């Protein structure tokens, strides 16, 4: 029995479960910002775990998979940041549960 391959496939399974949770969070969260939170975090860790699992199953692919992981870790948070910034500038409404918003306060105070 190849233990490394077994560990790898279990990691892959956990990663896909995280992706599923990301989708579920995307569906359940009340406003755009919380959806970005759920989507970005869970899908990033999910894909990283999946890639690592496949890399453990096939150890000679590990270098390329590492490069792919670096690309994902670099680009995914940036795109979600740009999206959140655009949504905030566009004044997409926040959910009524929101407690406070320093950014809007600061913007209005500098304008006046």
């Amino acid at each position, binding site marked *: 029995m190849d233990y490394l391959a077994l560990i790898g496939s279990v990691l892959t399974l956990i990663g896909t479960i995280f992706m599923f949770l990301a989708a579920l969070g995307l*569906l359940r969260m009340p406003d755009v910002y919380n959806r970005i939170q759920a989507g970005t975090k869970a899908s990033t860790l999910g894909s990283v775990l999946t890639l690592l699992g*496949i890399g453990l199953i096939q150890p000679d692919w590990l270098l390329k998979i590492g490069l792919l992981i670096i690309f994902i870790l670099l680009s995914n948070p940036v795109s979600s940041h740009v999206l959140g910034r655009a949504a905030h500038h566009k004044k997409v409404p926040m959910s009524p549960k929101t407690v406070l918003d320093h950014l809007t306060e600061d913007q209005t105070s500098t304008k006046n």
Partner: protein
Amino acid sequence: MINTLLSVSLLFIALSFILIIIRFLIGTTVADRIIALDVLTVSSIGMLVILARMFDRVIYLDVAVVYGILSFIGVIVMAKYMEKSL
């Protein structure tokens, strides 16, 4: 054994695709739909890598590399269009 686990993983990804599409269909604003597209791309990177293992060809990884590096551009263009600074 390994193949069974990987098949179950593929099923989970397909389920998450369906959930993301539901969010896309009911999403109230455009930003919701863009984040749905983003998550869809990242999930399909994972799916492509699993497929590369199941078909046992290393060359399919190149497709995943192109995906991973290009998923970024579409989202940035859409976000810039949204905030009117394209």
